[in-house]
């Protein structure tokens, strides 16, 4: 047995032991469990408008200058210019507030948490609007359900 093979074997043993220890002490659930309980819907949000109203709903998509939400059984678009902040999530809510967004990273995080992280194609929007019996998305600034 050469020194290098001994070292190599020891290293392998240590690596395996280390990986075993590590894998037994993860603090979050396995990905498969998360995937199988995923509803494939967007995260819950509260949209705080600059002029006062708040809208609770599902985040459908994030665009460059607006977000699309399903609120009060309506598809609605909110322009960032009219939004003061967005509270994202229910169990550990995160606030995106004026001054901190819309930054590129914030928008990226928001998009990942939406139902359509790659955006809503026209055909998908048509299906959504049909389900809510709308001809076009509502505007959160003038939203009247």
């Amino acid at each position, binding site marked *: 047995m050469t020194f290098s093979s001994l070292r190599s074997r020891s290293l392998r043993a240590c690596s395996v032991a280390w990986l075993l220890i590590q894998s037994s*002490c993860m*603090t979050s*659930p396995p990905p498969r469990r998360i995937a199988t309980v*995923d509803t494939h819907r967007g995260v819950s949000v509260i949209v705080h408008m600059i002029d006062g109203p708040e809208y609770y709903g599902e985040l459908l998509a994030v665009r460059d200058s607006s977000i699309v939400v399903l609120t009060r059984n309506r598809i609605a678009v909110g322009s960032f210019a009219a939004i003061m902040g967005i509270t994202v999530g229910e169990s*550990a809510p995160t606030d995106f507030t004026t001054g901190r967004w819309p930054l590129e990273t914030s928008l990226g995080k928001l998009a*990942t948490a939406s139902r359509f992280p790659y955006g809503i194609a026209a055909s998908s929007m048509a299906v959504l609007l049909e389900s809510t019996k709308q001809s076009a998305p509502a505007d959160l600034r003038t939203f009247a359900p």
Partner: protein
Amino acid sequence: MVSTFSRAHRSLLLAAGCFLVVACVISTTTGKRKVELSELAGTSVRVPIKAHLLDGSVILFADGATVAGSAVTGSGRRFDALRRELAPSAGIALDSVIGFEVYERRVNPFRTLVYSSAATAVSVIGTTAILIALFGSCPTIYGDSAGSQTLQAESFSYSIAPLLAKRDVDRMSIVPDAAGVIRLVVKNEALETHHLDHMEVIEVRHGRNEIALPSPRGGAIAVSELATGAMVRDGAGRDVTTLVARTDESAFSTDDGLLDRAIAGGPTDDHLTITVPRRPGVDSVGLMLRARSSLLTTSVLYEHLMGRQGALALDWMGDLSRITTLAKLASWYGGNFGMRVEVQDGPRWRRVIRLMDFGPTAWRTVGLAVPSTRSVDDSVRIRLVFAADAFRIDQLSIAHRVRRVEQRNIPIARAIDSEKKARADIVTMLSRADDREVETHPGDHFSIEFDAGREADAIRTFFFAGEGYYVEWLRPSWMKQGHAAQPFSPAQTPMREMLRSWKGGRDSLELLFFSRRVPIT
């Protein structure tokens, strides 16, 4: 010299190696990540992957998928744009796919460092049974007076899940400074994640000869004319009157003989009975109690509810979000722990209330109006019943006068984080009991200020009210008990067994807890 240096180095490396092996808790977050098509071309993915299609539908390949040629193949479940499940899918052409998301675990480097260091501290210390439970102190609230900090309160000690989130009110000794401001420091000194929902200070005005106390029934009371000549006896028959006569360094704890008898098959409850002469024409008396829990409940919580479950504790903690699981736990916990207050009515004992909210760190003083009923003789007898050795009781007094008093809620005016920065967002999040919370981790702390106003002539007492819950961190020792892991079953956890394991590690556990309560600095 070189040799010595080298040996020292080897020792250091060996120690570091041991440190790393013991500190094996890896903080991870499981979530989704967008992946571009180009990243997956020609690969087989073994983690769950979700394909987003042009028509808005998605296909979930829970066991992974192969992306090769012009298609992605695997065993998939398809959902339309409205997320209704469609027929299973064995694959899809790549030109129908906009992009993918993979589900994966990501390691949180900073938290892992903290977890691991904390876990190592626990592991190194805990070579004996004391490993079963170390910390259960919850958010600790310190009064900040000219830079000197004194412990004032310990909030929601047993709110170990969101559904158990509750409001605790603690009497404080702090007074406003010359500018009329009360400054408090909120600390996370435990191996826990704290979810803080609401915090406020409550002002109570009362007479000069009165003591204002938070009532477990809500609101506040003021008591006066403390009874002299009260006699207090415990379950072992000892006269403990002087032990609980006043606020001092001596406190009541259960007689060891009684604890031994409980373990051997005797009654598992202890009690204190306070007897005072009944004053004619008075329909109620005030009970003033200053107590804290022993570490019994902490050790039970951690050893039986979590430690013995091993990795199953992860699932069990998740199950606490279900009403039924929580109801079973609450029923079991309420049946075995807490403190029953009873008053003797003729020959019978009448239940007044059950007190549950004492933590192991800070003394809590509460007041309670109790009916002044006639016992078997012409005296008032009040009995506190609790599991053997579950409480430390510093003061137990009866007041002949008790009245409800008004209280004024004082909201947080300012918050300052550990970097001395003003934090309006913390003020907003803690100002109301809603779905916005401040989350803290071991070692975190921040200050909050309340404008109580300057009123030199008024006699005021201040309470601290806090609402929230906490999530316990799993200790490495618990995870290593995989071979013995068994789901927690309230019905199969006899009190006697809990007392036995408690007594075995009690002394060392208390010593450790009170000498090293702050494991992370």
